[in-house]
């Protein structure tokens, strides 16, 4: 390195000349790689949007089908004896579910099969029917044709009934909603104080060295597969709860255990988002607070928390949506059947857990189980969507802008 090079004037000609001093012609280079990267990035963005749209359409249309069309329940009944196109008295096989007056029945397994309306029930195996209702064609049927019972699902029943057993025509989603609410509530009651506490500690109290150790450890929690959390709940937390409260009180599968572990799962979410919000509060506010003679605690509670409120609210709502949608932990630890119960030590099934359990069997397309899962899925989707909207509104409403 010489002193002359530093003082040398650089002209445009130097840029256009290569090292050997030959002047280059200026032209537009084809930036193929740039283009490719540009396109890839655009597609990535578009793909996630398209996926969301497609997902919403599928979920929505299947769920609408569930409400708008008649669901056909397998009641394990068959015709006992052939019928002609004009026969109005049917003999049914014994066994299976009872048929009542006014029921809509469908003959044959085909979606387009003849539908009949029960006008009178003479005894358990003999009914009188009105043939070919709902625009279907009355035709002869052989002995042994399966009979299905039609069930209409109303929004009113869906949101007010407390019994969920789609296979036998009970479509009240409430037990699944309350269980989701219970596990989320328990989870938040763990995650909120611990997550927020960790965030305050990390942003205000921790020495840089402590922070460098603790922060990654908290983030490791977020990386643990949820199935591990699930078995942690079932094999560690549940026995612990049972030894504290007694095995008669705490069931093997219970909401409390699942909820507590869901809480642990969302600690990192709440801690890291809240910490970002706290760190984003300008230094000048802290300095002013300390300058006024406030203690550290007063600074945190009176100045920093209000200032970071929008970010913390967002963290909480993010945590709640995570808790509401959490599947594996509740599937493993909370129970395997809908149960309308507010006792945290009872078994129950959340919306996400129900979808997962039902979908792991040999579920066939078009069956009542299959269709009902979409309705539950849509309910869950709407719930998390509303939470996200609420989070956006709160963030915007309470945002403190520091210029």
């Amino acid at each position, binding site marked *: 390195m010489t002193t002359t090079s530093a003082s040398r004037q650089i002209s445009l000609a130097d840029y256009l000349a290569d090292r050997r001093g030959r002047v280059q012609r200026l032209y537009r280079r084809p930036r193929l790689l740039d283009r490719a990267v540009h396109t890839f990035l655009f597609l990535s963005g578009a793909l996630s949007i398209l996926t969301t749209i497609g997902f919403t359409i599928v979920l929505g249309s299947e769920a609408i089908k569930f409400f708008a069309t008649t669901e056909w329940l397998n*009641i*394990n009944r068959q015709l006992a004896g052939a019928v002609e196109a004009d026969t109005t008295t049917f003999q049914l096989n*014994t*066994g*299976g*579910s*009872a048929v009542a007056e006014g029921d809509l029945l469908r003959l044959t397994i085909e979606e387009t099969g003849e539908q009949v309306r029960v006008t009178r029930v003479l005894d358990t195996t003999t009914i009188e029917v009105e043939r070919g209702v709902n625009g279907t064609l009355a035709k002869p049927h052989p002995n*042994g044709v399966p009979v299905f019972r039609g069930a209409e699902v109303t929004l009113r029943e869906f949101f007010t009934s407390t*019994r969920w*057993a789609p*296979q*036998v025509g*009970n479509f009240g989603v409430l037990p699944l909603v309350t269980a989701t609410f219970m596990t989320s509530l328990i989870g938040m009651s763990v995650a909120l104080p611990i997550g927020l506490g960790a965030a305050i500690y990390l942003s205000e109290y921790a020495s840089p060295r402590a922070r460098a150790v603790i922060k990654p450890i908290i983030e490791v929690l977020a990386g643990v597969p949820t199935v591990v959390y699930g078995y942690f709940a*079932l094999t560690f937390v549940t026995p612990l709860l049972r030894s504290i409260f007694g*095995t*008669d009180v705490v*069931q*093997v*599968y219970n909401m409390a255990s699942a909820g507590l572990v869901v809480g642990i799962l969302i600690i990192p979410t709440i801690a890291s988002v809240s910490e970002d919000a706290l760190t984003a509060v300008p230094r000048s506010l802290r300095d002013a607070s300390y300058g006024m003679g406030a203690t550290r605690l007063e600074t945190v509670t009176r100045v920093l928390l209000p200032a970071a409120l929008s970010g913390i609210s967002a963290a909480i709502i993010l945590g709640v949506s995570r808790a509401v949608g959490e599947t594996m932990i509740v599937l493993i630890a909370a*129970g*395997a*059947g809908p*149960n309308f*119960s507010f006792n945290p030590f*009872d*078994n129950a099934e959340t919306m996400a857990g129900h979808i997962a*359990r039902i979908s*792991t*069997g*040999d*579920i066939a397309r078009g069956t009542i*189980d299959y269709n009902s899962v979409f309705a539950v899925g849509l309910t869950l989707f709407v719930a998390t969507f509303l939470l996200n909207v609420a989070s956006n509104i709160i963030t915007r409403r309470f945002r403190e802008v520091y210029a």
Partner: protein
Amino acid sequence: MRNRILFALVALLLLVPFMSAAAQDQSIVEIAAGNADFSTLVSLVQAAGLVDTLSGEGPFTVFAPTNDAFAAVPQIAVDFLLANPDVLTQVLTYHVVPGKVMSADLSSGEVATAQGQTIDVAVSDAGVKINNANVVAADIEASNGVIHVIDAVILPAFELPEVDPLAVSDNIIAAGSSTVFPLTERMADLFNQDGFGGTITVDMIGTGAGFERFCVNAETDISNASRPIRQTEIDSCRANGLEPVGFFVAIDALAVAVSRENTFVDNLTLEQVADIFSGKATTWAEVNPAWPAETIRLFSPGSDSGTYDYFVEEIFDRDETPIQNAPGIQFSEDDNVLVAGVEGSPYAIGYFGYAYYQADQERMRAVAIEGIVPSEETGTTGEYPLSRPLFIYSAPSIMQAKPQVAAFINYYLRNANEQLGSRPDQIGYIPTNKYVGRLNTVLYLAALGK
């Protein structure tokens, strides 16, 4: 059980008059001939030309099946025995043990028969069993030995002919019960793997519809059935020139189980099981006032499982409404979830395929149903109310006309038991015992007429 005791009593009553009259100077054959209850046995002994032998010096111990015992053997097998004197001789001499063995001398173990093979003697408080038969009357002394009366025909082991899947081709059509379906399908897969070149179709249409296709339409070669064929179905088969012959291939049984911590429930009636699993009784005290007033925790296999179907069929007459609406009931397709749930609370109850229960029986305890404890034995005899035999039916005319069907059934009978049990690669039914296997062999040979 009750039937069996009743039967033993009737048998005893029938025998009492002649037992007192029975003189030491009458031979075994003469005593048997003098009693109407042994007429089938006597006619078979005559057909086999064994009268002189059994009237000889002896001494012999004869396990004599009653007429009812012979009536329980399918007619096709009896006809086969009558048509093949050498086979008949083997079966009859299998009922004879050289020497005079009084019941007091009997102990559990194997005893060689005149036929050459051994019989299994099991002495217990409940009585004496010879293979699959019960001794219903003992120690009828004759001049040349002793007669013990048994309630079933016992069979020696015969060999099934060699089977070579490569040697047969063409198609096999099976249809019927959805319960038998997984087993028949498994056997079909294995048969194909072992080299069978044809196609095996297995349809799942239910036992009744299966028999309709088999007997009325004569479309299928094999009919899968989760119950014995009914008389009306036999009649419609015969009307079509088919003589149905059923092979007992497996036992489907359910175990209703509670936690090992549960000390109060020993026995439940079917009605109580229905009350419990429909939520009609929500606490144990409602089932039986002597039991604790604690909430019953219900666990059930999911509605996609055959175990659930069978339970609903047996307990609720195929109406799923009660069990689906039972409050707090938990359904899972994963047996581990159910076992952990049942094991974990003294107030929990669940039901399982018997094979799965067996695999986890140190964690749970099966409850007796109507006083009968589930076991392979009570399942095989059909005493246990929540068990049913699984069959495959075919007909001699089909098996003779289509060698691939005969070969497949042979292969099925040889290999089905290995595929049954609680291992993940097995099908969760109880294997049939060797005595059932021997009858299957005789039926198979009879169907082929050789």
